[in-house]
């Protein structure tokens, strides 16, 4: 603490893991969407490795003390959220019902987009065998998908892909967390 009057670099070195954890905790709490280790490192002017270690330590701390909250990795960032097991209590307080579910058509369309992105409407039609226009509209409105530019082919059709919202909505760290489409083969007869 005596060195604090010196340069910033020295001030940084003074931070213990505990202090870093506290700062990470405050920032993750304040952020209104998942916050990346990169952003945390920039704000705190620390190495990403140090921040990553603090995040991991903080996650363990939440787990170990059986907190009502969990620090979880989602959509490439970190977020504080309530623990799954407490959903009944939380829902009772918030008086919420599980939110409106996506239609079967929308879910199918979303599945095709998630696995085939970037993908055009005609390509989705090929796989689903049915027009998906209204499903696409719903998914765009719910921000689960985004446009991904035109495909350089006849008619330059628009391409679609999944959004960050998609990852958040389905609780995914990133797209690689999706099971491979071939894994669904076993389910077919």
């Amino acid at each position: 603490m005596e060195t604090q009057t010196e340069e910033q670099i020295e001030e940084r070195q003074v931070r213990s893991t505990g202090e870093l954890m506290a700062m990470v905790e405050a920032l993750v709490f304040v952020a209104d969407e998942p916050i990346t280790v990169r952003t945390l490192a920039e704000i705190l002017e620390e190495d990403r490795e140090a921040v990553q270690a603090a995040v991991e330590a903080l996650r363990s701390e939440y787990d170990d003390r059986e907190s009502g909250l969990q620090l979880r990795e989602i959509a490439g960032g970190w977020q504080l959220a309530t623990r799954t097991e407490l959903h009944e209590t939380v829902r009772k307080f918030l008086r919420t019902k599980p939110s409106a579910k996506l239609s079967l058509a929308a879910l199918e369309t979303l599945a095709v987009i998630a696995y085939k992105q970037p993908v055009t409407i005609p390509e989705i039609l090929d796989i689903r065998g049915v027009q998906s226009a209204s499903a696409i509209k719903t998914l765009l409105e719910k921000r689960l998908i985004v446009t991904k530019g035109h495909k350089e082919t006849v008619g330059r059709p628009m391409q679609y892909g999944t959004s960050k919202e998609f990852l958040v909505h389905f609780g995914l760290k990133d797209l690689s967390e999706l099971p491979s489409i071939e894994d669904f083969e076993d389910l077919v007869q």
Partner: protein
Amino acid sequence: MHSSMTQQEPEQYSFDFFGETAEIVAESRDELKLKIGQFAGPLDLLLYLIRQEQANIFDIPIARITDEYLIYIRLMKNMDIVVAADFLVMAAQLIEIKTKMLLPREPLTPGEDEVEDPRQELVDRLLEYERYKSAAEMLYERSTVEQAVFTRGPIESDDNNAEVSATVFDLITVFQKILSRQKEEIAMEIEREEISLADMIKTLRKRLLEQTELKLLEFFEEMHSHRELVTAFIAVLEIVRTEGVNVIQKNTFGDIILRKTSA
């Protein structure tokens, strides 16, 4: 297995599905409607029919499945369910496959590859579709789990204003709304009587009497169309030229103000 239908003529590709009576029995019309409405598309319906028949997907009894498929479509029409064109396209494809199956196969010459089964393409599509259907189920389950997790309530630092965080889709929808609004306004414009220069001068004169100082920009902002704006502009020039009105700008980028001279 095709012996029972060797006598048939090849089907015409017409969609006269209204001729026969429905064979599928349901408790009530509503229940049936529900049952039919739940298919996400023609492939979904086909998979359902194949499962109902407990048939092997790699050896689809195409004649029977086609018949049932057509019955379903006819039912949908009878129930006033809008039958998507895609269901009819599939019907045509099924009939085409059924027809091809009826044609005698050319005997294989040794060494020649086996002639492709007319059903092969359909089987491939069904298998691929079924994978995505399973993926959709996986997504459904994930979202159900995710609904058990809650993030924090709003805190002071959140912007609790009505602002939106925009995507490209917002841009295009907003633009489209503007265009249709513009169309409506043009239609109204035609009905609305055009304000003449004389009326505009009269309005401006009245305003100057009321306010003594009039911010030019504010006056222009009241105009409803480009044309009105031009008329307002000419009116300002006219009133400055002919009457005791000064144009004042207090600082370089300040408001331009019209003021009646006290003389």
